[in-house]
Structure formats: structure tokens, C-alpha cells
């Protein structure tokens, strides 16, 4: 369910298992202009497909009031459990609500949780990783041991525990998912900081009397940003799956908020009479996940030279 992760927090790549070293190509980071990056990115059809679908889902979420033919929580806009028709493209659910409109509005929950949770985890994890890697010593030991502990939790189980503590609602889902993703960001950042802080330009800045905070944010952070962005892009799909899993279990945003996971769960009861109730939100969820994974892989191949295949 959760996206597979390797111990160092990078997304698990089956091609790499069993190889002698993690980095087949040496790190030769050269800054490329946006245009050159785009030409490389655009050579990958999967990544382009992912980008197109992602843009479509974002547009769907933003323009939901315009695009949705019906009010997503209005009951009885059609007969209950009607199959797909020209009036209701994806049919209606057991309350006679329009499933297509609910899928459109459901993209809002998925995207908000996916993006905000990952950003939150990124800010906290990267800060911890910067502190841990830059200062070292006991603070490094304490932070990284806590991260090891967090990392041992399967994401969905940690999220379930957090929901138990905090109660339901979109904001709490975001926090629960974010906590699960802090450790990978901290680990990736710390590893890169350890390498960057030995560079001569950091030493030079230190000797020139630049303060630690300025060094961390002006010199270290920009140089570890690329793998963090890649990590972020790859995590969004994991966050969306986790949100869908929570709402499938009934621990997500409370009804009648349209959330894809809950819609799938509601449809299971009627799988014999009306299989479309589960099928369409599931297709939306799967499309979003496939698109984000392809997009993330494309970003990884073009932004992070060490992880290029």
C-alpha cells in the first residue's frame, strides 16, 4: 500500500537491488538551464504522460465548481445506484449522488493532502536533516535515532495511530500522513549535507566569518535541493495512497466530504448490484498514482544525476 522505501529513504528501485554499490554513476552535478532540462524531461514519454495527467487532475481540483455537473453532496440528483448514463457519466451512488461530481471534488482532498502533507514533511524533515548533518555530535545522534524509530512504523499504521490520537478531519489526515514522511526527508538531507559540508566553498565561507545559519541556508541548502525535490515528487503518490487508505478505513475526512477512498469503501457494499460505485473512484485514484509515479521517475532521471539509470 505505502510506496516501497529503501532504508536510506529513497524510493525503492528494484533495478538497484543486489548491485554492489548504490551509485553506479558518480555525482557530477552540473547546472543545466531550464530549457535543456525540459528537453531531457520531454524525451521520456512516461514522464510526459504523468505530467499531463497530473495537470489535468490539478485543473479538475481548481475548476471543480465549474466542471462538476452536480453538487457533490446533494442527494437524490438521480435515482440511487443508477449505472453510467449521459446524465450521470459515472452513475450515481446509493444516496443518488452524482459520482462524477464527487470524483471531481474528491481530487481536492487527494491533492491537498498529498501536496500539503509532503510539503510539511519536507520542511520539518529537511530542517532536521540540515541540523543533524551540519552540526553532528549528540544532536545528530538524537535526531537520527528518533528518525530510525519513526522509520520502523509502516506508514499506514503510523497514520492510523495518529488519527486515533488526533481525531478525524482533513487537517489531521494531513498531519498524520506528514509525520510518516518526515524520516525519509531527514535521512536524504542529512546524507547530502555530510557530503556538501566538506566542500571547500563551505570551509571558505566559515573562514570568512559567515554564521552557521547563513551557511546552512545560503550555501548548504541550495546544493542539496535537487534530491529533496525528487524525493518530494516521489512521495506525493504515497501520501495520496495513504489518505485513500485512511478514508477507506473510515478514518479520513468525515462524510459527506467526497474522498476517493471512502467512495470506494461505500461502493463495496453494493458491489453485486452496482459495481460502478467503487470502480470509477478507483480508476481516478489509480490514474493519479500512476501519473505521479511516472512524473516522479522522470524528475528523478533528469534532476538527480546519481539516481539516473
Amino acid at each position, binding site marked *: *500500500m505505502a510506496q516501497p522505501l529503501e532504508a536510506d529513504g529513497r524510493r525503492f528501485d528494484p533495478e538497484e537491488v543486489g548491485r554492489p554499490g548504490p551509485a553506479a554513476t558518480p555525482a557530477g552535478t552540473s547546472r543545466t538551464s531550464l530549457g535543456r532540462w525540459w528537453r531531457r524531461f520531454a524525451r521520456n514519454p512516461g514522464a510526459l504522460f504523468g505530467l499531463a495527467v497530473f495537470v489535468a487532475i490539478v485543473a479538475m481540483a481548481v475548476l471543480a465548481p465549474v466542471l462538476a455537473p452536480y453538487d457533490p453532496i446533494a442527494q437524490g440528483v438521480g435515482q440511487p445506484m443508477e449505472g453510467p448514463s449521459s446524465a450521470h457519466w459515472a452513475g450515481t451512488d446509493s444516496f443518488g449522488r452524482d459520482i462524477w461530481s464527487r470524483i471531481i471534488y474528491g481530487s481536492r482532498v487527494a491533492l491537498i493532502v498529498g501536496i500539503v502533507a509532503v510539503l510539511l514533511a519536507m520542511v520539518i524533515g529537511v530542517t532536521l536533516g540540515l541540523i543533524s548533518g551540519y552540526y553532528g555530535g549528540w544532536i545528530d545522534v538524537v535526531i537520527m535515532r528518533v528518525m530510525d*524509530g519513526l522509520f520502523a512504523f509502516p506508514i499506514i499504521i503510523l497514520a492510523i495511530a495518529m488519527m486515533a490520537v488526533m481525531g478525524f478531519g482533513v487537517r489531521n489526515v494531513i498531519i498524520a500522513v506528514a509525520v510518516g514522511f518526515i524520516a525519509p526527508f531527514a535521512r536524504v538531507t542529512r546524507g547530502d549535507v555530510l557530503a556538501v559540508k566538506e566542500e571547500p566553498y563551505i570551509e571558505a565561507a566559515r573562514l570568512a566569518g559567515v554564521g552557521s545559519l547563513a551557511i546552512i541556508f545560503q550555501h548548504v541548502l541550495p546544493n542539496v535541493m535537487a534530491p529533496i525535490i525528487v524525493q518530494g515528487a516521489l512521495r506525493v503518490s504515497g501520501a495520496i495512497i495513504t489518505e485513500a487508505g485512511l478514508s477507506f478505513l473510515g478514518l479520513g475526512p468525515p462524510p459527506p466530504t467526497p474522498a476517493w477512498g471512502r467512495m470506494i469503501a461505500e461502493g463495496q457494499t453494493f458491489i453485486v448490484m452496482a459495481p460502478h460505485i467503487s470502480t470509477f473512484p478507483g480508476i481516478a485514484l489509480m490514474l493519479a498514482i500512476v501519473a505521479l509515479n511516472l512524473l516522479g521517475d522522470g524528475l528523478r532521471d533528469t534532476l538527480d544525476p546519481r539516481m539516473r539509470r
Partner: protein
Amino acid sequence: MVRFVLSRIGQTLAVLFTVSVIIFALMRMIPGDPVLMRLGDDFTQEAYDRLRGELGFDRSIVTQYFIWLGQVLRGDLGDSYLNHERVSRLVLEAFVPTLVLVLASVIVGILIAVPSGIVAAMRKDSLWDWGSMGFAIFVYSMPSFWKGIILIWIFSVYLGWFPAMGYVPPWTNLSQGLWRLVLPAVTLGTFFSGLVARIIRSSLLEVLDQDYVKAARARGVRRAALVYKHALANALIPVVTVIGLQFGALLGGAVLTETVFAIPGMGRLSVNAILNRDYSVVQGTILVGVFAVVVVNLVVDLAYAFLNPRIRVA
């Protein structure tokens, strides 16, 4: 080797300690007074103070943690607030079906992954390769709970081949037990097979590209013989690692898959406990789940070192 084993065990204990602190902290963050929850509505101030003292809530938070840890280490996870059963018993009862599902899924996953990985590697860039790898990515991207519902729809409702839900322990009734396990295990196993098939494909390709393999080919050894006699054994070692890395994901997936198939496992126990605010049960399921993940990772690391002597030094 002894040093490697000892250092891995030490790391595992450190992680378990951190995990216990995190879970203890989480449980103390729950709103509401745990003393009041135990007393119910009708109580006196003395009763309140006495229970508070008995539970150790008047001591420092560090002392409270060690009291709690001592109880957990003795296997005392408290009583369920709902039906006053021992939490340790409830959790272990629920853990068995979950573990059965995870094991069955690993078996199904390997049964699917090995042939499709071999076919893909032997006919690289053919329709077979594209087909089996496309299938791998497809089943891997389907959320397990949705995949389960689709499988129920096709194989239970439409074709009527398998029961839609329920669980029978395989040791009480083997045929019934396994029969009911097929759809859940396929649901979770295909997720796992997607990963494993890609690993087998890439490690086979790597071995087939070695000079000694090319030389053997030049001498006329059949490609299939090479794959089965030499390459496959090496390609299977990384699968052990994946089981370790993915055990957490499999356990998480099992929690969701169980819910679809109404299997009385950890997923159902923890979700019901949350909905009923039965926090000692929530705590018990999480403790046991994470403990299992950490221990499996330790075992897999040790097994891998045993299978592959090159990493023992690390």
C-alpha cells in the same frame, strides 16, 4: 560474523527503544484523563487519587515511561476498555490471520514473479517482456483495497469461483482455509510480485551479460540451462532483501486487504478500537505490528549475510 550479528541486534534494540518512546508519547497525547476513563461516571475524590497513585500518574513522566515499559516487557498490555479482555490476547489472536495473509501473499507474489521475471529477461524487449513488466507496474500501482474489490466483483460475484469474504484458519480446515485465502493473497501478492518480477528480470539480465555466460553460450550451452542452473539462484538472493524491506508495506497492505475481505486481523481490531476509543487495544496493535516489522528486518538482514558472505564485513 559474530560481530555483525551482535551489532545488528544492538541496532535493533536501539530502534525498539525509540519506537517504545514514540508510542508512549503518542498515547499520552490522547485528549482526556486516563484515570477518569477507568473510573467511569461515579467516583469519589479518594478513589480518584488512589487509582491515580496505583497507575503511577502522580510520578514524573520518565518514571511513568519505565513503569509502562516494564509492563510491556512482561507482556502486559493492559485490558480492553470495551470488554475487559487482556489486550495481549486480543492482539495475538488478531495477529495470526494477518500473518497468514502476509505469508500467503509472499508465496503468491513469488509464484507470479519468478516465471514472469524469467520470461521477461529471456525474451528481453519482446512482447513478453513488455507485457509482463507492464502488468507488474499496473498491479503495483493499484491500491490494494480497490484491487480486492475488483477481484471480488470478477471472481466471486461474476464468475462465482471464490468466496467473497471471511476467514477460516487453514489448520482447522485446510481446503476451506486456503480457498478463502486465494483472493486476499492474490490482492496483496500481486503488489509484491510487481516488485519482485522487476528485480528478477534485472538481476538475470545482469548475470546473462557476464563474460562467462557468453563464453558458455559460445560453447553451445543452452540459454535455458544457463538460467536455471546458474543464474536463477543468484537472482533469488535479492528477493530475500525485498521481503525485509517490504514487510512493513505488506503489513500495512494486509491491514487494508483484511478490511475488504472481512478477515478478523490487526486491521479490523485497530480500526474498531479507534472508533470505540479503546486506546489500550490501539496501543497493543501498533506495538506488536512495529515490533514484527523490526524483528523481520533483523532476521532478513542476518539471513542475507548468511546467504551472501560479501556483506558480512559491512
